[in-house]
């Protein structure tokens, strides 16, 4: 199996009822990469996937796979295979029949397809389960059957539509590793759709963050998390403390903004100018309690008051309030029983390089 690249050229989708689900989009997905599209429900992820798989024709633009334009080519003739949100396994067929279905449709002889199906079942660690019905498998096993079924037709591109969303947390985390592993083994291009940032971040080579039919940022996970390009990307991926104000001073590295809580500085990656309205984002885990000399390297400081403190296990959530503003801090549970009184005054702060300043729209 060999991955192929996928190119979207000005592709948009307008549904017959007039709703524009996908704005004109240019996007290149590299051959063999694990590419995720991350965005909230209804933002158009499935629509993009269905256009790539050929179930929908783009309203404008064109799609090419492996350099070959796909116009007028039906879903059953594209080098893609789709894994549906709900898997869409055939419940009345055995696992083996499911996996072999695409081969059956191609007219492969029974013995041959049985052999191939069994090969694929061992690839996804389901040896000996071929005679069961999908209903007799656990969620994770079903997941793997869906993958095997899709891989059976030797696609160059595998399209996965939130394939883990029906699973419970533990299993979901486990399956991430498995999927990633299969992708690595097969070299097939994976286009993976999710609204779960954890999934996108842990598995993907690159992520596209999508919002309201538009792709707002494309890049590796770390880039998206640490250097979000838009306010949406900043808040959709991970938690943020957001401070809003006006830029009072800016150079190519740093911006200083005037907020109701005082002047705060952060990285000015997007070249904001003095006078512009801006949001400054700091992640809860990048904020620190400025007690006992910990404060040394904190460029920004705030006086806050502890409202609540929740032990989550590996970390503590501190809910504070600075003036009118609620703040959240993540602090690792070091086991030293950080004993903080409710309503205690608690100076907090963050480093300039942990804060990002973005233009406030509208």
């Amino acid at each position, binding site marked *: 199996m060999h991955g192929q690249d996928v190119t979207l050229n000005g592709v948009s989708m307008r549904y*017959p*009822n007039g709703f524009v689900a996908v704005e004109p989009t240019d996007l290149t997905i590299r051959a063999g990469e694990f590419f995720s599209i991350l965005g909230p429900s209804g933002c158009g992820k499935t629509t993009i996937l269905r256009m790539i798989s050929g179930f*929908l024709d783009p309203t404008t633009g064109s799609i090419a796979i492996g350099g070959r334009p796909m116009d*007028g080519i039906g879903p059953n003739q594209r080098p893609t295979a789709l894994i549906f949100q709900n898997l869409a396994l055939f419940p009345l067929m055995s696992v083996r029949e499911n996996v072999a279905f695409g081969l059956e449709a191609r007219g492969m002889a029974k013995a041959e397809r049985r052999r191939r199906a069994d090969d694929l079942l061992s690839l996804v660690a389901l040896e000996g389960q071929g005679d069961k019905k999908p209903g007799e498998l656990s969620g994770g096993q079903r997941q793997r059957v869906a993958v095997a079924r899709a891989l059976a037709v030797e696609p160059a591109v595998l399209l996965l539509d939130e394939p883990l969303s029906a699973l419970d947390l533990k299993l979901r985390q486990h399956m991430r590793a498995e999927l990633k592993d299969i992708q690595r083994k097969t070299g097939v291009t994976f286009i993976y759709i999710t609204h779960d940032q954890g999934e996108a971040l842990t598995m993907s080579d690159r992520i596209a963050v999508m919002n309201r039919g538009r792709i707002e940022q494309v890049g590796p996970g770390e880039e998206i998390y640490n250097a979000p390009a838009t306010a949406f990307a900043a808040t959709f991926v991970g938690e943020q403390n957001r401070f809003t104000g006006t830029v009072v001073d800016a150079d190519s590295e740093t911006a200083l903004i005037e907020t109701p809580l005082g002047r705060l500085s952060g990285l000015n990656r997007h070249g904001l100018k003095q006078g512009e309205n801006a949001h400054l984002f700091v992640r809860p885990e990048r904020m620190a309690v400025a007690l006992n000399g910990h404060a040394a390297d904190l460029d920004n400081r705030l006086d806050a008051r502890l409202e609540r403190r929740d032990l989550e296990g590996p970390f503590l959530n501190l809910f504070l309030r600075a003036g009118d503003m609620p703040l959240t801090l993540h602090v690792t549970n070091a086991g030293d029983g950080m004993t903080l009184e409710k309503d205690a005054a608690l100076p907090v702060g963050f480093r300039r390089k942990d804060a990002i300043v973005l233009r406030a729209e509208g």
Partner: protein
Amino acid sequence: MTDQTAGSLLSAPARRQRSVDWSAALLNGYLLFFFAWMFLPLILMVLAAFNANPTPSATDWQGFTLQWFEKLPRDERFMQGLFHSLLIAAGVIVTAIPMGLAGALILSRLQSRANTLLYTLLVSPVLTPGIVLGATTMIFWRDLFGVEAGLFTTVMAQAAFIAAYCMLMFMARLQRQDHVLEEAALDLGASPFFVFRRVTLPFLMPTILTAAFISFLQSIENYNTTFFAIGGSWTLVTEIGSRMRFGLSPMINAIGVIFIAITVVVAVTHTIMTRKRA
């Protein structure tokens, strides 16, 4: 619909349409044929109801008339039959609904192998040919109680299977109800009767109304069972049947038009209402 009209009648909007999907075209053609086959006879029947030709015909037109409708209320057998039909329907509603409800409630609680047996027995009338139901009821009441076939036996025969329809509707509804609701009510200090009255019954109320409506329709239009169980009496439908055997009359078309009109109005209203709600 919008810019879709030229598209296929079947495939959902925005499905692939550029390449000619001719299995869809074939299906569309077939659908057209099917619905023509369904409706053409009915349309002919309606036309003939307004034709002055005393032999019902949509082709041999002898002028527009309403006389067949005017004759209806003056036809005593029809009117009396209608009255009998209504009486029977009322009887069926008041017997079938409580029985169906009781059956559904018991089956929803009964947790043993007896459940399937009871279920099978109670739904068996639905799977029994209507004439057999009519005949058994007629025999039973005559042999055991000396009650001869008539309106009463008809109610009994119809209720036997209509209650099963009601029961299935109630069971479907109850399946959507949470047992836990009843436990919650008990936990809040309510007595079982209070729970039934305040929680279970209101929950079932819409289904009871639907079931009453369906029972009414089923009863009014029943022929096979009634034919055997009605004895010397008659209902609107058995009267229509016996007239048809003697030959065609546009009065039957007139009744047909009324039935169709009511059906169409009810069905359309129902569709519009459910669509609005959705």
